[in-house]
């Protein structure tokens, strides 16, 4: 394979990993705080719809992004109310959020735009454009390094860069700040946090809101950056792949990035391989599609390493006698 094909596959990998990475980091915050979130998918979908709808109406991509993030945060707060304040079942809350988003986005889409659930095609102003990094054009002639810079690193929309920037930031927040210390503690032993005079409820809400923010970015990526409008169920299970990646990365930010890149790469490969053969063997596309899920199952089963989540995850905190 020549460099061009490799670069374009890797380029696609970066693009396809971006929503996974944002959603995966989103999940990381709330799960590290002890709130299981299987509703990443729903929050992304809600955001994708809201972003596209507002961007279509206002022809302003930033307003679209804002709407997507706002809706995602609202949804996350609803989930937080159920899981934290009302001490409901976190898993069921996630299922409900996914279903609610699937139903409402289509329902409102049909009602508002009358295109079978799709939002209108976005104009240039309604979408995030690809950014050409400084000197990208100038360096494109330089073999390998220049090509990598201009074709792989440069030329993505802003959310791609935000996603990859979010990795070191998350790492720093988690391991270098007071908030991070408390966040990690509350997912392991909320009682220790409570007796140290810190509000468990407040911390968990903060985490859930960050989850909402990042899911909002991830959702907006689908409809106003990668795509140019919302289509029914356009997140297509990516929220669950992100969840799988989170488990695969053992709830750590840097491994999360590599896992998302791996899963994104599989996705890119699968698109490229549509109808093609690899090393003369006919690999079904579906096998590559199922691979992230399969790998996660295998990891969870402890056949390759062991994934143990935050200890207090999934359990509402009750001050007991």
């Amino acid at each position, binding site marked *: 394979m020549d460099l061009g094909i490799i670069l374009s596959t890797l380029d696609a990998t970066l693009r396809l990993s971006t929503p996974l990475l944002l959603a995966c980091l989103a999940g990381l915050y709330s799960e590290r705080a002890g709130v299981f979130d299987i509703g990443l998918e729903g929050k992304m979908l809600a955001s994708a719809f809201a972003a596209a709808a507002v961007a279509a109406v206002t022809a302003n991509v930033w307003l679209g992004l804002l709407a997507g993030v706002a809706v995602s945060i609202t949804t996350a707060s609803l989930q937080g109310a159920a899981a934290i304040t009302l001490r409901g079942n976190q898993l069921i809350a996630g299922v409900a959020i996914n279903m609610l988003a699937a139903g409402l986005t289509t329902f409102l889409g049909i009602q508002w735009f009358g295109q079978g659930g799709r939002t209108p095609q976005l104009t240039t102003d309604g979408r995030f454009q690809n950014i050409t990094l400084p000197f990208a054009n100038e360096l494109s002639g330089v073999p390998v390094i220049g090509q990598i810079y201009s074709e792989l690193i440069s030329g993505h929309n802003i959310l791609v860069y935000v996603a990859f920037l979010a990795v070191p930031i998350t790492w720093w927040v988690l391991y270098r700040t007071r908030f991070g210390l408390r966040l990690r503690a509350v997912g392991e032993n909320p009682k220790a946090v409570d007796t140290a005079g810190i509000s468990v409820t407040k911390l968990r809400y903060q985490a859930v809101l960050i989850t909402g923010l990042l899911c909002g970015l991830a959702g907006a990526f689908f409809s106003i950056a990668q795509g140019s409008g919302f289509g029914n169920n356009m997140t297509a299970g990516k929220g669950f792949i992100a969840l799988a990646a989170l488990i695969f990365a053992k709830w750590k930010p840097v491994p999360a990035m590599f896992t998302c890149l791996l899963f994104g790469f599989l996705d890119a490969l699968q698109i490229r391989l549509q109808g093609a053969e690899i090393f003369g063997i006919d690999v079904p596309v579906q096998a590559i599609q199922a691979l992230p899920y399969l790998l996660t199952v295998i990891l969870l089963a402890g056949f390759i390493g062991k994934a143990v989540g935050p200890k207090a995850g999934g359990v509402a905190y009750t*001050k007991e006698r």
Partner: protein
Amino acid sequence: MTDPVQNGDNLQQRPQGAVASSAAASDLAIELIGINKRFGAVHANKDIDLKVRRGTVHGIVGENGAGKSTLMSILYGFYTADSGEIRVGGTPHAITDSRHALALGIGMVHQHFMLVDNFSILENVVLGAEDSAMLGPSLDRARKELTRLEKEYNLEVDPDAIIEDVSVGTQQRVEILKALYRGADVLILDEPTGVLTPAEADDLFRVLRVLRDQGKTIILITHKLREIMAITDYVSVMRQGAMVDTLKTSETNPEQLAELMVGRRVLLRVHKTPARPGDTFLSVENLVVKDDLGVTRVKDVSFTVRAGEIVGIAGVAGNGQSELLESISGMRDQSSGTVRLKGTPLSLEGDDGAHRARKAGLAHVPEDRQRMGLITGFEEWENAMLGYEDDPAYGKGVILDIPAAQAQARERIKKFDIRPANERLKTALFSGGNQQKIVLAREMERNPDVLIVGQPTRGVDIGAIEFIHNQIIKMRDAGKAILVVSVELDEIRSLADRILVMFDGHIVGEADPATATERELGLMMAGVTDKKAPPAREAAEGKMP
């Protein structure tokens, strides 16, 4: 800082319980006035008054459920009192949360440690007491401060060690360091020795003395009179939510305190005839058992129990007794060794090991009835067949004969005087004593050859204790082999015909309850014995992976 001895003298001159309102307010570190707290219908604290002098170790003693922990949780701001006043250093404060208490210099070491297992010691110390939003400076300062505190109070720890890797004793030190790091002048310790080995407990007392001598005030909650006598300067006794009395420790004795605690003379002696042991029914050979974390907790234990005798296993909690019981009863896989019932080896492996043990004639009353022995959400009759649901008495084939099961439950309710006498009632609604009777009835009525009982009367009211002890003795007199494990030494001494002492996973000695003194047993429980010496700790631990 006022001289502690001086304070003692002040108190001595006054009638007990009415510590001088005229005494200088600054002499008192803590003053609680008229504290009331209700949990639903339970009046956990009734109009409590308490004065704690600066620079003293003040014990608060009482039975389980006397309201000690509630009172201290109020002082620490974990609960808010319904009424009453808290004065710290003479000034009234409404302590609304733990942060507030910490700011007033009140620190607490909880019975169950409030530590994050996968954090380092340093991170645990800093958690909640960070200087700023950035972690770095806080950690640096904490590291320096820890070094200083360690030196000042002889509290060595490795700040970078991870909590789950260090011993329970060290974890407790971390809790104390946490409080000191937050500038605590008053340190509350809730049942601090429950999880410690005797050596660790002695070490803790040494630390507490150092702290007191440096001017700190220590409030020690316990139900162990030995500790009160060993370490405290003053002692307050609580009973059923009320403060009974406050005494100077040097002027009282365990008998008086026990009487104050219980409210009447306690007679723990059980009336029984001498045992007439027969054949060996239960024999345990070279048993090795690991806990859930893979730590070896039972180390090469061998003993036998004969028909018609009660063998009691004494020891400080956490020395392998729980794992021993769980292993013999088939709940926990053993690493090696053999358990024989009437000479036949029991096959106990797998998660249905307990089922095979029962089939072979080994019944088990577990130490924690609510966690293991009962399903509290089930109706009484359902629990009355738990573990025996395969029995033909409860139906044909796969179908349950519910009327038959309920009829049998009714019979047992009558026989064991379980109240309320309603087999359709949810088990959670029975009191501790009655729940224990449900378990006992179930296990004893199967007429097993061997009965093993963990903590027979934990959390059981006094009336039921007698009944339960008598039932166990009745079983013995019927020629059954009985193994009792209890952390209450008195219970073991009065119930057992033969005492085995367990320490650090080994049986370190055997004693005759008729002749052994509390001191002898206590030494053995602490691992000090001149009889066959236990294998060196290092050697035993060397076997671990």
